[in-house]
């Protein structure tokens, strides 16, 4: 037995036995094995001793006066809580029923009289192993719980910081509905929307590779570029190039971000689309009918080097009541128990069957539930309706300067030549400059819209010589923009001159913008004489310019546009 003492750590063992002789015998055996012994004469004493001294193992006689072993076992187990305190019943009972009662009362083993020191030693040892195993499990469980809480707390803080950035945008606009898990960020899903200075809306639905923190870290820089450049008036192409370059620079090789970006102009009723790696989005017709897919034509962001990146967008005409529906891969990649994917066809059937736009999300989720029994937690859905621009109210730009140093009497002329026109968008710079004129800030949305129209007219119809009649119907729309890209890439000569003149007046002042191009010009009186209804998709530009500015005229056979804005002195 001394052998056993050496490799068993001393335990404290409680022995409850009403027979004095048996009690002494057991105590002697256990003590010889190197353990500490506590003794009790009945169940009540045993419970009291347990509560006071917390022994490691308990030997309980089943039949005892005052309180029997069964009740004592129940009370000791209750006191022990989650920790395992092994109870070995000492019994001369041999009927099965009695032994079952011992186990039901919480006993872990039993020892029959007469007592064998060898078997008792072995049982105490075995029980000690169980006890330690349970203790280890509990400790690790608590450790995991602590780590988990720690992680949740970190996620909560990270999410709070990120929400400050992400919610700078306009996801709350009246024509946007979206559905996203609150912790979508940690699934790598990202949803951003913001107004451009001209009142257009930029939208991004993205999906980073992976899950958890690695998927979330890229979201912050991406959101910053998106909001920063959108607010400054940059278009999708420049914003995409910058986002791609930034992600390429900071992300490891195997991480990237699938993304679908939209530039929605509610004034001009067009949407510009770029899809790199996201599932098809859809343009849903107002009157039901075949949804038009917005197909992924590019590699995701963060893979290609800046010089290889393709920022080509597609442009589609929009009509009132049409909707854009975007979704994350959690929808089509939801699989049933046989690993069958929900897939695009099932989704299209749901889209086609939808009658009430407001119920579309619920119908998609129901279809997923019906397919699988339970939908994934990383499903993001976004629905944007084409509405009258007046229904949307971009927030006013907040300026931090005092306005006292505003320059009021100056003029500037720029000439942008072929190589510049190909790859550079000068509008953000011009708009930045014009924001220095405090009197004009109330009209900055209109100013942005007009300047954008003037520039794209000069570029597309002037320098590139594209016929605006091409845009008259939806079908030729796509080929118009394809031709625009081809001609721009091949451009070797031509120019756009922008002349800005700011003059103070007795009460306020005025800005005259002249935009001149190297193109063939157009028949001004004929185009302007057309009724608005006939101008359709192609004529909206000129109409918009006339509506938003104080005065607009075209001279030099349409090659030069002169537009005037004026303001009253600020109080």
């Amino acid at each position: 037995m001394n052998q056993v003492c050496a490799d068993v750590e001393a335990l404290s063992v409680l022995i409850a036995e009403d027979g004095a002789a048996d009690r002494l015998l057991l105590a002697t055996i256990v003590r010889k094995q190197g353990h500490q012994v506590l003794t009790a004469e009945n169940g009540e004493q045993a419970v009291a001793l347990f509560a006071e001294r917390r022994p490691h193992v308990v030997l309980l006689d089943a039949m005892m006066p005052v309180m029997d072993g069964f009740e004592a076992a129940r009370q000791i187990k209750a006191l022990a809580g989650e920790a395992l305190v092994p109870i070995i019943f000492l019994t001369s009972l041999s009927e099965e029923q009695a032994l079952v009662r011992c186990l039901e009362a919480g006993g872990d083993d039993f020892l029959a009289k007469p007592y064998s020191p060898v078997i008792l030693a072995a049982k105490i040892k075995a029980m000690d192993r169980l006890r330690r195993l349970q203790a280890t499990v509990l400790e690790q469980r608590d450790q995991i719980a602590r780590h988990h809480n720690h992680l949740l707390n970190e996620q909560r803080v990270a999410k709070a910081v990120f929400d400050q950035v992400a919610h700078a945008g306009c996801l709350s606009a009246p024509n946007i509905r979206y559905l996203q898990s609150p912790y979508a960020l940690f699934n790598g899903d990202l949803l951003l929307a913001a107004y451009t200075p001209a009142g257009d809306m930029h939208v991004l639905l993205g999906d980073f590779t992976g899950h958890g923190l690695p998927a979330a870290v890229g979201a912050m820089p991406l959101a910053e570029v998106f909001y920063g450049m959108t607010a400054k008036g940059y278009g999708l192409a420049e914003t995409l190039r910058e986002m791609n370059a930034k992600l390429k620079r900071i992300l490891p090789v195997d991480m990237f971000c699938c993304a679908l970006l939209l530039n929605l102009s509610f004034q001009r009723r067009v949407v510009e689309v770029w899809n790199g790696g996201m599932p098809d989005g859809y343009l849903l017709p107002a009157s039901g009918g075949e949804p038009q897919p917005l197909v992924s034509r590019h590699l995701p962001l963060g893979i290609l080097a800046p010089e290889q990146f393709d920022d080509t967008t597609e442009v589609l005409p929009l009509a009132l009541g049409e909707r854009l529906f975007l979704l994350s891969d959690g929808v089509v990649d939801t699989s049933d128990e046989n690993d069958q994917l929900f897939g695009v066809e099932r989704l299209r059937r749901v889209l086609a069957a939808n009658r009430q736009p407001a119920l579309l999300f619920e119908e998609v989720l129901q279809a997923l539930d019906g397919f699988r029994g339970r939908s994934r937690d990383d499903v993001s859905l976004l629905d944007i309706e084409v509405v009258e621009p007046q229904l949307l109210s971009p927030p006013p730009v907040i300026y931090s300067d005092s306005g006292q140093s505003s320059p009021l009497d100056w003029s500037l002329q720029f000439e942008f030549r072929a190589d510049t026109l190909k790859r550079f968008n000068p509008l953000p710079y011009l708009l930045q400059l014009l924001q220095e004129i405090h009197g004009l800030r109330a009209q900055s949305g209109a100013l942005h819209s007009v300047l954008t129209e003037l520039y794209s007219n000069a570029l597309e119809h002037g320098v590139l010589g594209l016929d605006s009649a091409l845009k008259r119907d939806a079908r030729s729309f796509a080929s118009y923009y394809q031709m625009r890209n081809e001609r721009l890439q091949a451009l070797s000569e031509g120019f756009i001159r922008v002349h800005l003149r700011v003059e103070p007046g007795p009460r306020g002042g005025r800005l005259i913008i002249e935009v001149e191009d190297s193109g063939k010009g157009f028949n001004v009186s004929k185009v302007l004489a057309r009724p608005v209804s006939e101008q359709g998709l192609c004529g909206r530009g000129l109409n918009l310019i006339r509506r938003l500015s104080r005065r607009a005229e075209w001279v030099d056979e349409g090659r030069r546009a002169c537009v005037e804005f004026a303001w009253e002195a600020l109080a």
Partner: protein
Amino acid sequence: MAVESVVSQDGKKLTIKVKGRFDFGKHQEFRNAYEHKPARPDSVVVDLKEATYLDSSALGMLLLLRDHAGGDESDVRVVNASSDVRKILAISNFDKLFDIS
């Protein structure tokens, strides 16, 4: 082994076969299939004949392989992809980086 790699006799071509789900669980095995090889092969073939599914982290692994094999100079082919797997590769437009057949 769910990921097998074979180098051709002349040592110029490395073939990596992936079986079952090609997802993050195969990360280490997939890397082991091409890292620490005595010589860099001229070309790499990823055989997905027995791959049933591919997720975005698998796309990331393909990018790592491509980077390891020389980036834009690399010759990495993805062969025998099932129609489901090809769809996933197509949505991400990986055919612009890899020769997929």
